[in-house]
Every structure is written in C-alpha cells, then in structure tokens.
C-alpha cells in the first residue's frame, strides 16, 4: 500500500516537473504577447530528439550535447516568435492561434522527415539502477528532472523579479504601450520571451526523454496539457503555472495508479472544462473579472 503510494508520488514528481517547465513557457509567451503558443510542446520534442542524435547515437559528451541542443531549439523559438508575433497586427486572435497550430504541424512533420516515426530514448544521466525508498523504486533520472525544473524555474523567478531585463519583460506584460513609452524595446523583449520558453521546453525534453521516450508527434498533446496547467493556475502567472502543473500531475498519477489509464487521460480535459466554467481566471487569478479573455484582439 505504502509502496504504491510512494511510487505514485514519484511519478507525479517527474510528470509535474515536466508540465511545470512547459506551462511556465506557455505563460511567459502569453504574458508578453497574449498568444497561446500551440507549438510549445514541439520544443520538448525537439530537445529530446536532438539529444537522441547527439548524445544517444552520436556519442557526444553531455557537456557538449546539451548546449548545442539548447542553442538549436532557442534559434527555432526565436524564428517562431518572429513569424507569430507582429506588433501591427489587428484583431487577429484566430489567425495567430492558427499560425501556432500550423507551426506545430510543420515542426513535428519536419521532425518526422529528419528522424523517423519511431519512439526514441537515450541512456539516463546517472544510470538506470533504481534507488529503493520505502519499498518503492525511484529512477535516478527523476531527481535530474526535479532538479532541472526547480533550478530553471527558480532562476527564471529571480530573473523576472531582480534583473533589469526581467523587469522590462514584466512591464511589457502589464502594458505594452506604457512600457514602450518608458523606453523599453518591446520587440526584443517579446522575442526574449519566446526564446526563454523554447529553452524551458527544450530542457524539459532533455531531462524527461530517458524516462518517457520521445517521438515526432507527441508535442501537440504536451502543449495542450502545459497550457491547461497554466490556465488552471491562472494565465500569466509563473507561480500559478507551477501550482497548476502540480495539481494536474497529482491527479493524473493517482488516477493512473488507483483507477485506470483511460480515466487518467480523461481527467485532465474534464478538469480543464470545469475550471474554465467555474474559475475562468484560474486558482491564483482571483475572481474579480469574470470571463477572462477580454483581450480578444492583439494590439
């Protein structure tokens, strides 16, 4: 009994860390641009796939493979930012949404041609020998995943609140016009949010692939789960994104252990619809302005 419980907590830990990395990326881009980036999950897929080629099959050392992987995905994220976000675009919520869906299809389709349709993985960073704990087995990679999530999100938090660039990003999120009037270069700041989101996704892909494996088509579903988590916590709020991810991960892990994997898949999406109905601003979003999405149009 206890072993089952502890095992489930471990599962929740690794899923939750991955969702958190994706959800924080979604929230960053949303704050800066009011764009929900359907392609966010593709960065996770790419992070995993590029590592498969460099580290798994190419035999590169970790210290060389990781930076190159991050660099490549960051470049792609910047490109996506340039395509999806254009300051002058009027009232184009639907078209931007479709652009990111299209980008997601284009990236995953290209990945199919660059690699193939198979499922891949590469060896875990500290071996596969499980650590026994209260009768449950903890894969050492789980610690890497958790560590990476805590470190990255912690660093991001410090960056947003204690650096000039971070403050500029937050200013842009609050009011882009006012930020521009204060002399903040809005364009580069928006681009930076895409790059940061790409990096977070890529890091998630790098640490999670040894556990969950990766194939070309998994990105879209991951993106949907990521921003569902972000929305659960309250869109545009880093702490909320983390909280939402934890809630989702715990729900999914316990549903998978104690109910069935079908229920696990359903639970996420039923929760999304319920949250949207009753708490449209999310758990941490406050209730003052019902029916969010007042920003139907981009400025």
């Amino acid at each position, binding site marked *: 009994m206890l072993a089952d419980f502890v095992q489930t907590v471990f599962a929740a830990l690794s899923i939750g860390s991955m969702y958190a990395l994706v959800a924080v990326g979604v929230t960053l881009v949303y704050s800066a641009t009011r764009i929900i980036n359907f392609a966010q999950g593709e960065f996770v897929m790419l992070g995993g796939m590029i590592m498969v080629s460099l580290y798994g099959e190419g035999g590169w050392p970790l210290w060389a493979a990781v930076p190159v992987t991050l660099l490549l995905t960051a470049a792609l994220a910047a490109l996506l930012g340039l395509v999806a976000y254009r300051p002058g675009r009027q009232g184009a919520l639907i078209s931007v949404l479709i652009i990111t869906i299209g980008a997601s299809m284009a990236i995953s389709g290209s990945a199919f041609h660059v690699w193939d349709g198979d499922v891949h993985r590469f060896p875990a960073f500290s071996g596969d020998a499980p650590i026994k704990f209260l009768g449950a087995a903890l894969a050492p990679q789980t610690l890497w995943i958790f560590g990476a999530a805590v470190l990255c999100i912690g660093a991001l938090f410090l960056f947003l609140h204690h650096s000039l660039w971070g403050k500029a990003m937050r200013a842009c999120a609050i009011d882009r016009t006012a930020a521009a009037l204060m002399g903040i270069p809005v364009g580069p700041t928006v681009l930076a949010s895409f790059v940061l989101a790409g990096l977070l996704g890529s890091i998630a892909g790098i640490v999670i692939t040894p556990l969950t494996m990766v194939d070309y088509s998994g990105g879209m579903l991951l993106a949907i789960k990521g921003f569902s988590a972000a929305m659960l916590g309250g869109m545009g709020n880093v702490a909320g994104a983390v909280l939402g991810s934890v809630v989702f991960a715990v729900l999914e892990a316990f549903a998978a252990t104690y109910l069935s994997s079908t229920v696990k898949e359903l639970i996420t999406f039923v929760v999304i*619809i319920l949250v949207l109905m009753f708490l449209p601003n999310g758990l941490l979003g406050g209730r003052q302005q019902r029916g969010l999405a007042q920003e139907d149009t981009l400025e």
Partner: protein
Amino acid sequence: MCASCSTLCTEPAPMPRRDRNLWFGLCALVLVAPWLLGGGYFINTSNFVAIYALPAIGLCLLVGYCGQLSISHAAFFALGAYASGILSARQGLNPWLALLLAQVLAAVVAVFIGWVVLRLRGHYLAIATLSFTIIIEVLIKELGSLTGGLQGLSGIPRLSLGGWPIASDTALHYLLWTVTLGVLWFALNLAHSRMGRAYRAIKEGDAATALLGVDVSRHKIEVFVLSSLFASLGGSLYAHFVTFVSPAAGSVMFAIDIILVLAFGGFDRLWGAMLGVLALTYLNEYAVTFADYKRVAFGVALVVIMSFFPTGLLAGLVAAGQRLWRKGA
C-alpha cells in the same frame, strides 16, 4: 428550434441574386457531373467533397459569421458517424432511423456542450472545445466493445430506398449532393436573415450586440448547435457511405483539416469554404506522393496563409484583385 424557425419565417430572407445564381449553377453542375466526370474514381472523390462540405459549412457559420472559434467539429463528425454506425450495425436499426437518432443525440450533446463552453471566448473557447475533441477521441479508442476501438467499426449498412441499398457511385452522388446542396441553401439563407445579421453583430462585439437587444448567449448556442449538427450529419452520411469508421474521424488532426479548409477558402465565405473543400479533398486523394509531406505542407500553408491573408487565401486574393481592379478603372 421553434423560436428560430419563427424568426426565419417572419423575416423573408433576401438571399442576394449572385448567391442564388451560383447555387443554381452548382445544382446544374451536380446534375451533369456523372456524365462529365465519367463515373468511377472522380465521382467517388466528389462524394467525399459533398460529405466534408457539411462540417466546413457548419464551421464557416460559427467562425466566419459568429466569430467563435471551435475545434470540436471533428468530435461531432465522429459522434454522428459512430452513433449512426453503432445503431445500425450493432443494434440492427434501419439506417435512416439510425441516421435520424444520431442527429438527435448530436443535438442534445451540442446543446449541453454549447451551454457549458460558449460563455468562454477566444483562446479559452478554443481550448475548451479542443478538450472536448480529445475526450471524444479517447472515448472512441477506449470503449472498444462499443466502438471497435483502434480497429474501427465496420459492416455499417448502406442507406436504402424502397428496399434497394444505394450503393452505386452515381446514386450516392445524387443522394449526398442533394443533402449538401440543401444544407448550403439553408446556410446561405441563414447568413442573410435576421439571425445571420445577429451573428455578425456578435462577432463584432458581445456587449454592443447585447445592448441592441439581441440575446447573445441564445444566438451563440443556436449557431453552435446548428453548426455541430451539420458536422454530425456529415459524419452519419460518411458512415453509411464508406460503411466503416475509424478513430481518425474524431481526431484533432481532422479538426485541424476542417479549419485548414476555411483558411484556404475564407472564414466568412460559404462559397470559399466549398472551394476549399473541393481543392483539399482532390489534393488529398490524388497527390499520393505528397501524402508523406502532408503534415509539413499543411503546417507551412497554415502559417503562410494566416500571416498574409488572415481572412483566408481565396477571400484574400479576391479582395486584393478587387483593389487592383478599382485602381485600374
């Protein structure tokens, strides 16, 4: 539905002459198509055009006219297809009755889902409807004893007329296109009726429309249900036409395909949607070598079209052409 019927009847819908002429032109084309296309493969593909036109017309009304982006049309298509298939193949119901009951079921589900999600707007509506599509997709795959799971549901009987199953491509051609032309006529009328005007007002802004005395949430649910019904009707016809349904009918990919049709033809153009369906269905059928690259090509097409023609490719080109023409004259 009664309230909306009375609105429709008391307000004679002045469908523009151009739309009416185009519609009669399409009727004539459908009538002679079996001779023109010489039966066989071409006609078969044209039957798929008629079927896929139904969800596209529905989505066009919802997105283009009413401004509510829904990613749930594949789910309703699958709902119609599976309900029709299960009722006729597993329960042995008459296919016509199965088709009718499937629409009733889809309508009930659409009213409920519409009531739940239509208070949301923009991204939130898109994600809520997308969640619904994923729920349906998972259910289809997991409820194997009912739906046949990943193998799909086969052995669905064809529709029959006076004891004779409608099986030949030509007979199916007339049946399917009669339905599609009827739905198109209805949609064209609706678009120019009092309700159609209300939908366009809602697209421009909820608050202002409500201020004019239009019951915004009722109209939204109305158009959502209608639009979902068109999709489920398409699904039911698909089931009895192909006699087989697979989970692909309810997949997110198919939902995106329907959106792509509108991105190609124009979001607020019913005729554009028809052309979009025609182009993409034939493209899918005949460019077999292209199938490998479909995901990349469609993805890139979506990005490029939406970047340069946010109202849709054909609609954007027509508008650009008109500007040039006026400048020349």
